[in-house]
């Protein structure tokens, strides 16, 4: 009897030892301990003020990797990404899906519901029924198209690879290169260290461009002259947190700016002359390291944010209008 107990105990000990060895060999991962060389991102990501917006339920597109959002003239929401574009109504119901090969990096919508879709090196136009209207030739081998904007007459294409904004007719004829360094016209040129280079048309019809290496938003005239700019680098809430910010921006119907940043992920609202007004969503609303928070705004003031990390279209509503 004593011998049996001894054998059973020995076997249990042996199995426990083998189990521990196997766990240590294959599963054991050292715990993260305090990093003496910590950069301090945790402290930087602490929100300094309370957001003026609250979040509604997000839209979850079926696209594999979403990149861009735009709103159409009838209030529809267009989400572009890997393999196509999906259209939603305000309630988040899927209305339509257009499929094509490749990744749509950006999208804008004309008044007649024609979609202007930036692929990596060229632009394609599609109608809302999913028929391709035209496909423009590639701009350059080094082109990285990151944003498109459209008004009644022109289509503007931001090329982070060439660090330039192209002005096209609606039919795809290139008319001008905007933002090239020209000291005689006081144009400093675009500095685009990473592929975040956004353009948008304000409700007043002006072309604005994010010069991220200078941490500024710049307004250009029809003749390509630099008319105005604002923006300061700062980790505090009033400024843009260093290099490559604001990564994206859009306009509210009343002309206020909505900006998003990477590094310290946050979405903010600025006045028309660049004064900080409100926080839409702070870093705690996003996963650390999220890049490419593309933005759009609806006619009733909702702010739509592409969240590539969660592959969701996040929706933020003004607190008083929720």
């Amino acid at each position, binding site marked *: 009897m004593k011998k049996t107990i001894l054998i059973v105990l020995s076997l249990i000990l042996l199995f426990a030892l083998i189990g521990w060895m196997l766990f240590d060999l294959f599963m054991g*991962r*050292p*715990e*993260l301990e305090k*990093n*003496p*060389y*910590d*950069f*301090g*991102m945790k402290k*930087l990501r602490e929100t300094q003020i309370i957001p003026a917006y609250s979040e509604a339920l997000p839209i979850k597109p079926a696209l594999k990797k979403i990149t861009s959002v735009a709103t159409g003239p009838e209030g529809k929401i267009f989400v572009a990404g890997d393999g196509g574009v999906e259209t939603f109504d305000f309630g988040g119901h899927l209305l339509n899906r257009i499929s094509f090969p490749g990744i749509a990096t950006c999208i804008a919508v004309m008044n007649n519901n024609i979609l202007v879709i930036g692929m990596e090196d060229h632009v394609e136009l599609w109608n809302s029924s999913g028929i391709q209207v035209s496909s423009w030739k590639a701009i350059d081998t080094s082109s990285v198209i990151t944003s498109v904007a459209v008004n009644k007459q022109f289509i503007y294409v931001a090329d982070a690879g060439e660090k330039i904004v192209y002005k096209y007719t609606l039919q795809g004829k290139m008319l001008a290169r905007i933002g090239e360094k020209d000291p005689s016209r006081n144009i*400093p040129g675009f*500095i*685009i*260290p*990473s*592929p975040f280079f956004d353009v948008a048309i304000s409700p007043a019809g002006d072309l604005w461009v994010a010069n991220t*290496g*200078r*941490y500024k938003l710049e307004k250009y005239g029809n003749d390509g002259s630099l008319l105005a700019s604002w923006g300061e*680098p*700062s*980790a*505090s809430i009033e400024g843009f*947190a*260093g*290099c*490559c*910010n604001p990564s994206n921006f859009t306009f509210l119907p009343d002309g206020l700016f909505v900006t998003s940043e*990477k*590094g310290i992920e946050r979405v903010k609202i600025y006045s028309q002359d660049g004064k900080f007004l409100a926080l839409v969503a702070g870093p705690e609303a996003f996963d650390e*390291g999220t890049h490419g928070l593309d933005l759009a705004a609806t006619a009733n003031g909702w702010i739509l944010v592409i969240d590539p990390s969660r592959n969701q279209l996040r929706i933020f509503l003004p607190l008083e209008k929720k």
Partner: protein
Amino acid sequence: MEKQNRRQFLRLAIRGTLFGGLALITGDLLFRKGGSLFNNNIMSGPTVWQLDPSKCIQCGRCATNCVKTPSAVKCTHAFSMCGYCNLCSGYFKPGTKNLDTGAEKQVCPVNAIKRSYVEDPFFEYTIDESLCIGCGKCVKGCGAFGNGSLQLQVRHPLCDNCNECSIARNCPAGAFSRVPASDPYLLKGFGKDRV
């Protein structure tokens, strides 16, 4: 069942052990991670340790766990990726106002990054490897705000290529692996011509 004598039992045990060992070796050859008879990825030549920047989380262990002092892991700069920013987030602490080379404004704890003027508004940042301790603090700043042109790599002239790398054993991200000595760097970005 016929009762075995001690000699038969021992013979059976030795045969079983030999067969089991043979099976283990065969299985290892067939399914080894990073190179097996099936995936034609056997590293036939000598190999060295390297870390994959796309997996690296800048935990600081490259600085503290290497058997060499300072560590054989160094920050390397992918110049073809770099934006040559005036406000380099791998160089300046967040919130720095006056962009000069004051030590108190620098992210690097050992002042191993040298900043030099190129043309308005561009600056070049080079790493003094004799000072760099491989802590990855600048890599974190560059990756978060910039484009990630600063990356940690094992510098092979400095590495002892230990059989069991002390950093690899303690890397929480599993970023270390053995790579062919003929192609020893795993930089992300454009090409491999910039170390």
